[in-house]
């Protein structure tokens, strides 16, 4: 069975900066694939290439079997793109916006009218369809922003960080929307730097960092990469550089990361290592003010792979 999205050695450079380096991953038809990575990882750049906004420097990708470089029109026809920022005409009504975007996807006449009605229903704005978008709340605009990508019933939909900067309620609404669309058979490529979202939505996750796909797999597979390692979050009463150096040298510690006095340590066996951590702290004259032992999660995986936290 062919992949809905196939990405092969995709590259993009901006001058000297290699924003995307040899990215390769696939999405099976009907699944949700998340691109997870910190700011500047190259997620948006990858998506811009897939949606035909940027020409790749090298490599290729295909949407529903259509190469984005050789048959861009066909690839775009199979694809709905929800931009990271609202991209709508504020001085047109919700309906006028949807009608216009529908036309850009080749819909006309009765079919267009019917589909606009359906989409208004899906995004729950039938009764506000005549109002100008400019007067809408942020959450309502986001819904129209998504709606405009659904008009032509695309096989694949790409969403770039659709939940950035919105309230928890709207976020919930959007996540539910994504799941509903996926249940109807749409393949979804979802980018985020929230690991909870990736964990909740995805069948597969590609983790990106500094332009590279550094891990790919189902959620549980990725967690297993950390092996038996356990993550311990600690807080110190000083910034304690000495303590950190000592901990790093402690046997059984594989990764260590500190941010704002919060320290995250990956260890092979918490029962055995934890006493050593206390011992080294008191030797250096520091005090541990809190300890939490975490089940491994995507954050742990990222830390394990890069030595850095997902969120900076």
């Amino acid at each position: 069975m062919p992949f809905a999205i196939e990405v092969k050695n995709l590259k993009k450079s901006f001058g000297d900066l290699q924003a995307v380096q040899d990215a390769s991953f696939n999405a099976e038809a009907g699944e949700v694939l998340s691109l997870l990575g910190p700011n500047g990882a190259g997620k948006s750049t990858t998506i811009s290439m897939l949606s035909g906004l940027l020409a790749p420097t090298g490599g290729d990708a295909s949407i529903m079997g259509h190469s984005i470089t050789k048959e861009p029109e066909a690839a775009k026809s199979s694809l709905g793109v929800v931009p990271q920022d609202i991209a709508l005409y504020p001085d047109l009504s919700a309906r006028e916006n949807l009608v216009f975007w529908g036309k850009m996807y080749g819909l006309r006449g009765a079919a267009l009218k019917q589909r606009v009605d359906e989409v208004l229903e899906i995004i729950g704005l039938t009764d506000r369809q005549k109002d100008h978008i400019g007067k809408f709340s942020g959450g309502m605009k986001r819904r129209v922003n998504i709606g405009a990508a659904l008009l032509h019933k695309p096989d694949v939909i790409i969403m770039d960080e659709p939940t950035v900067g919105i309230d928890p309620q709207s976020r919930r609404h959007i996540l539910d929307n994504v799941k509903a669309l996926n249940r109807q058979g749409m393949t979804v490529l979802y980018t985020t730097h929230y690991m909870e979202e990736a964990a909740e939505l995805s069948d597969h996750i590609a983790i990106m960092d500094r332009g590279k796909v550094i891990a790919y797999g189902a959620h549980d597979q990725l967690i297993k990469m950390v092996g038996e390692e356990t993550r311990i979050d600690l807080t110190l009463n000083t910034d304690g550089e000495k303590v950190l150096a000592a901990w790093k040298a402690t046997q059984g510690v594989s990764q260590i990361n500190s941010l704002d006095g919060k320290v995250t340590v990956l260890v092979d066996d918490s029962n055995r290592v934890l006493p050593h951590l206390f011992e080294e702290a008191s030797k250096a004259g520091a005090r541990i003010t809190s300890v939490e032992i975490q089940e491994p999660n995507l954050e742990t995986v990222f830390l394990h792979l890069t030595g850095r936290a997902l969120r900076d």
Partner: protein
Amino acid sequence: MKIVDIALKDLVRSTRSLFLIGMAFAAPLLLTGLIYLAFGSIASGNLSLPDITLGVVNADALPADAPLDASFGESIRSMFFDESVRSWITASDYPDEAAARAAVDAQEIGVAVIIPAAFTEDYLAGKKDTVITILQDPTLSIGPTVVRDMVTSLLDGIAGGGIAFNVLNERLAANGQMLDPASIPSFFERYAAWYTDFQRAMFHSPEKAALVVTSPAAESEMSDPVRSMMGMMMSGQLIFFSFFTGAYAMMSILQESEEGTLARLFTTPTDRTTILAGKFLAVLFTVIIQGVVLLVAGHYLFGINWGEPGSLTLSLLGQMFASVGLAVLLVSFVQNSKQGGLVFGGALTMLGMISGLFTANIEIKAFDLMGNFTPQGWVLKAWKLSLAGSPANELVAPFLVLATMGVVMFAIGAVMFRRRFA
């Protein structure tokens, strides 16, 4: 088809932009309307003017050695007896000041103009105490004001002529030459004729000044010179705002780029050339619609006869080509929509000024010359021809110049657009 969809979308958005509507339609009509009201009285012709009854005492005589064909006194006198003012000035001669004063007192006449003996001689000699006396019925205000304006205006002209004459004479003398005495009267006449025209153009000709003072606008037919003057004034507004509207409408591409909708358009299965073409088409429509509306409004509101159908069509099409071409070129230089308004305002006002758009009713040599190098200048040439009633074949040349300018500017701008946006 998508080209038209994109263009229509832009047009709908334009109709919702109060600023654009204001600049495209309201501003040019309002400005022309203000001019019309200011000089609207001219339009009402001679009908509403109160009749002036005037007595003239002309004791002046032409000195034997004066370089003139007639005395100044006679010039002033004949102005009031002229055919052109006969409908509203009834002038009669009186032998001396006493007779005129008696007539004013008896309210037989409203005003009397007394020109003293040897006025020409004294005036030419530069004597300061030579004066023209105006006697008036104290119950009247308008008539005497008008008469005084007319006299002052004429004397200004004569004084100007004298200065010019002296300057010319000194120049010639410095070169060891002499003015041929026989040419002096014709010099004064030419100067006086020029001055009268100049005054007329500046609305200060004696008759027009008088009319401005006196009559409120009435609903009578406009005289032909006034009608054509309104045409000139409005064509300046029409051209300036056509260019402004074109540039402003074209700026929607910068807005779309900033709002993210341009990027979104690029993710749809729509060719980039189609997208750019759709946006250009919208500007084209906008400028054409604006032009037609303003022409029709100008005709019905201000009685302007824009010319023969073929001529005005060529003028309008030339204007459209030039506006769209310059709009594309200008916008391709602008970084963002915030900068746009300022840049257009500045650039278009400059270009408009040096092309003579704001002084369309007067001939200014420098502007005529510079206008040869600006699209605005050529659009103005086209409208002037059309307004003057020239047949369409005389407009083919300016039209071709405008079409060429438009296409060249468009091509340069479009290449820059493609590099930048597509």
